[in-house]
């Protein structure tokens, strides 16, 4: 391929260079890990696949449900009782969730968080729907996405925000 100019020093040298690079890789540190046995640490801000919901901080304002453009969060409330609504139903259909994290950003009371979990394989689609009870009972592994740290026992506001205020 002398007409190409760049390979004119000797045919085949360029190919050997490529092979040399591959040979160097034999002695490099392996870049991959064997997944189920070993795990990489997840970053703090990971938007994991399980919503973490703190019922004690939730006022039932449904800002998350209004922000969710996938229509994943279903919330039914009754009340208000004092400064909050009673949450009768809080359902997250993680099968439709795209984990954009906009609901977490929108929550005015830090009541929902993304989680650091990432293994959510299920055998049936119905199993992907997380009910209020499941969310309450779930082990909570909140991620630092958007809310830097979960604030334990954050004080609730004096009055329930109206729809105009939350939007």
């Amino acid at each position, binding site marked *: *391929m002398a007409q*190409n100019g*760049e*390979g004119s020093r000797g*045919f*085949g*040298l*360029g*190919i050997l*260079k*490529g092979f040399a*690079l*591959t040979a160097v*890789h034999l002695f490099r540190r392996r*870049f991959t890990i064997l997944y189920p046995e070993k795990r990489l640490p997840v*970053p*703090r*801000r*990971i*938007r994991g696949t399980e919503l973490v919901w703190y019922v004690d901080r939730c006022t039932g304002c449904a800002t998350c449900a209004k*922000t969710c*453009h996938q229509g994943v969060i279903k919330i039914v409330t009754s009340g208000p009782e004092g400064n909050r609504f009673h949450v009768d139903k809080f359902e997250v259909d993680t099968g439709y969730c*795209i*984990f*954009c*994290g*906009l609901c977490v*950003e*929108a929550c005015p009371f830090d009541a929902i968080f*993304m989680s650091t979990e990432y293994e959510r394989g299920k055998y049936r689609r119905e199993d992907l729907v997380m009910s209020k009870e499941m969310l309450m009972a779930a082990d909570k592994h909140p*991620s630092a*996405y*958007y809310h830097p740290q979960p604030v334990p026992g954050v004080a609730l506001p004096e009055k329930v925000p109206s729809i105009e205020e939350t*939007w």
Partner: protein
Amino acid sequence: MAIKTEPFVVNVGPQHPSTHGVFRMRMVMDGETIVDMEPVFGYLHRGVEKIGETRTYTGCIPLTDRMDYLSAPANNLAYVMAVEKLAGVKAPERAQYIRVIMGELARLASHSMAVGSFLNDLGAMATPLVYMWREREKILDLLEMTCGQRLTSNYMRVGGVSQDLPEEFTPAVKKFVVEMPRFIDEYDQLIKDNEIVLARTKGVGVLSKEMAVSIGASGPVLRGSGVKWDIRKSDPYAVYDRMQFDIPTGTAGDCYDRYRVRVEEMRQSVRILEQALAQLPQGEVRAKVPQRLRPPAGAAYGHIEGPKGELGFYVVSDGSVAPYRFHIRAPSLINLSALREMVIGWKIADAIVTFGSIDICLGEVDR
């Protein structure tokens, strides 16, 4: 004695190991030579533009992640720039710098994928591709550290970015900037002198300067043909006007030149990253923008130099919470329309290489 032959049609794709994604090339062949080629796309159409009309301005940002999924922050940036123009919002200076950093990281990730899959198309099965993925993995780790996910970043917001960089980001990206040039040289070593690559790519799939301009090609495809055109220079957005960098161009407009332009651009991206990190100011990262944004009625076009070319969003507002019209100028689609000009007269194997050299992302072509 002349043998009577007639052209026949070969469909490459939509499910074919050597096409990227679900793309079909309907080739009219004379023996092994391509007489005519018709690109058939739309298999991955999800109606992003129509869905966008039903969502709020913020709710459209995750949609843009899913177009060119190899460089999601760049897509976010183009969209939020259009909406910012529409709403008259200006992002704080730190956010502008973060946008430049993220845009260049996305370019590096996309170009390393482009170079890797280009070699894969040439028949270097998987090995170079995995080398490129190794570097891309580091970039994706940086993205994950910042915005929580590797591919669908959803990081830019109207009026800034969603949250500030974490404190571990700056040391990590500084380390990356030092390491990356060495790996770019390594990639280059695989191709620059390799006789097989040169024989397969030099002079193959030539796109002339005039044709590239008249088709409206942009990005490395246009620059590979020798046109010095880069939105970062010609219409500087964010803080690109404060950065020193060159626009690499090719001369012949063949597959090899397009590859060279990408590798040089990666070097320039590292340069921009270094400068942006050095200049990164402190301060706010997000302007005060109502969550339910209602921009005044009007239209705006925001465009950036994406990894694949000029990526533009044309957003029309009627004063409500959702865009009235949402049009995407996808560089992959427009560059792909140049494919027919490039492959006529070549063999099928060359068509695959030419197709790989355009570097398209089907998520963006069909959107």
